[in-house]
């Protein structure tokens, strides 16, 4: 597969943005294929909104290129880039009705009245808000507001949709529902979309591809699965998925040391906890630990077990034989993610060499 020949719908090349002395984006490179749903994931203040604003033409970068559909758009006004923007707080026009909000972009573009009317009703139907066209934004629920903002951004038929923390202002209860709704909607419309979030679960659940940002830089880009199983930086390893830091992984059996100043990160999935003699296969290579805590997690049990002076988390099934606090158990670690400077190295248990373990 040759990366050079691939055609991306959106490309950012070496984008830098400063606010005064503060570097909000540093050498940002993004490549997104047409029709993808991409999450821009990072902690608050990591520069996610800035990237969206640069793509939408609301900010201009100090350096770097923005290409949409192969065309350089650095000097194209935001309104002519074919981009729809859903603002974080929705920024609905408070003094306009739902109808006028959705129609705004079409009226600005001087579309014929009939066309506007048809399009607004089509969108109202799409977002399941028929009959609400005469309401003002403050007369809508949070979810309805979000959907109206979505419809307003979609009205002029953008080819690229940008959503800034679309679920942040919504109660936890309907948030899950809206996530599914948005994903379905965007998949059906086949519109290339980027949404910003600081919630890794949201990114993993909704996106085809995740771009992880940290301090204005991109740490890693990949599918949720790739980021999870092949994190390339310590930040990504810790940010995506549950993890326990293990300083002294060198003391565990069947793991060779990759250097004295390296540490490791461990995921619960990499740890199996057995009652003594419960599993013949691993008895040889397992080490003894003591159960510190058993936490009920709905579909499974989290077992916190002390071994070599550290407390690890491992999972056990609900129907497996019960382990008690204080019980001596066999602990088998499949793999560590070893932090070597700025890199992550996957280190597998050497007793498993012949077998392939799929997580």
């Amino acid at each position: 597969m040759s990366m050079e020949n691939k055609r991306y719908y959106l490309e950012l090349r070496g984008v830098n943005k400063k606010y005064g002395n503060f570097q909000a984006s540093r050498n940002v490179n993004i490549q997104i294929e047409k029709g993808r749903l991409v999450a821009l994931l990072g902690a608050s203040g990591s520069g996610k909104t800035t990237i969206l604003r640069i793509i939408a033409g609301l900010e201009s970068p100090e350096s770097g290129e923005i290409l949409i559909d192969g065309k350089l758009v650095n000097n194209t006004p935001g309104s002519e880039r074919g981009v729809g923007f859903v603002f974080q707080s929705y920024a609905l026009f408070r003094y306009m009705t739902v109808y006028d909000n959705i129609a705004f972009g079409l009226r600005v573009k001087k579309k014929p009245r009939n066309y506007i009317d048809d399009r607004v009703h089509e969108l109202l139907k799409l977002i399941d808000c028929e009959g609400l066209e005469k309401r003002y934004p403050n007369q809508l629920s949070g979810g309805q507001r979000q959907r109206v903002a979505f419809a307003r951004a979609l009205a002029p038929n953008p080819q690229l949709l940008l959503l800034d923390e679309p679920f942040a202002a919504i109660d936890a209860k309907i948030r899950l529902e809206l996530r599914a709704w948005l994903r379905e909607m965007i998949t059906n419309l086949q519109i290339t979309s980027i949404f910003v979030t600081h919630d890794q679960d949201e990114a993993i659940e909704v996106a085809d591809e995740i771009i992880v940002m940290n301090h204005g830089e991109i740490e890693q880009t990949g599918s949720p699965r790739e980021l999870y199983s092949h994190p390339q930086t310590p930040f990504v390893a810790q940010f995506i998925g549950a993890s326990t830091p293990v300083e002294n992984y060198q003391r565990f059996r069947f793991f060779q040391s990759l250097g004295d100043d390296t540490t490791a990160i461990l995921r619960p999935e990499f740890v199996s906890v057995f009652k003594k003699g419960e599993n013949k296969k691993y008895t040889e290579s397992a080490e003894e630990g003591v159960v510190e805590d058993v936490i009920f997690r709905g579909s499974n049990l989290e077992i916190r077990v002390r071994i070599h002076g550290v407390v690890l988390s491992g999972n056990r099934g609900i129907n497996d034989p019960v382990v008690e606090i204080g019980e001596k158990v066999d602990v088998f670690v499949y793999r560590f993610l070893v932090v070597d400077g700025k890199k992550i190295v996957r280190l597998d248990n050497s007793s498993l060499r012949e077998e392939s373990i799929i997580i």
Partner: protein
Amino acid sequence: MDIRKNSGVVKWTLIVLCSSFLVVFLILPLIYIVVTALRSGFQAYWNSITDEYAIKAALLTIEAMVCAVVINTIFGICAAWTLTKYQFRGKKTISTLIDLPVTVSPIIAGLIFVLTFGRQSFLFPFLDRFGIQIIFAVPGIILATVFVTFPFISREIIPALAAQGTDEEEAAAQMGANMFTIFRKVTYPHIKWALLYGVVLCSARAMGEFGAVSVLSGHLRGKTNTLPLYIELLYQGYDFNGAFAASSVLVLLSVVILALRMWLEKRGAKEIDVRK
């Protein structure tokens, strides 16, 4: 002590105090104006207020008021927009300068203009060459009125604009709306009531302005006399009937403005209730 208790000596004492204060300082003088104006009969009153110079003075007052409102509305919107939508150095200074006319005595303001545009000014030969007369002429009166009413409109709009933020404008701009459309469709509804309220305040203040206008006017009867100046002139000439008749016109205008103000406050509060 329970402040909200309905009975009580304190409460009633305060109410009586406030009411008598208002009666003595406000209602009585107003009644006195009307009574004095009508003392020599309605015909005399009518003659006084339809006097050629009285009408000219009233028209000039209205002219100055309209100019002040128009100029200060444009300036006020620009200033409020600049101060709330942009970040820049010297913002505080501009904000403070806008309030200056309220703190400077109107007489001083008048004198400043005389010094700036009068015979001794370096600008005078220049203005003279183009036949522009400011001092002792209508432009001077308008200038003075604009100056003293300078902050009234911008001060009303700034809080309304600041409360709204900039994201609605940004959304509109992102969809390709131009500045004018953004202002008309997005910003204006937010500041409408504040703006109208500012216009009312500005009108009231413009109508009554005496000090600065007095310095710049030159008191040319029928030419540069506004109503307040005209009243002063009649009063100095012991024409009490005429002075009070003209005053009653000014009072009537004030009452109209007061009524407008009350109506605006009610409407504005109602609409904000609905949209916030």
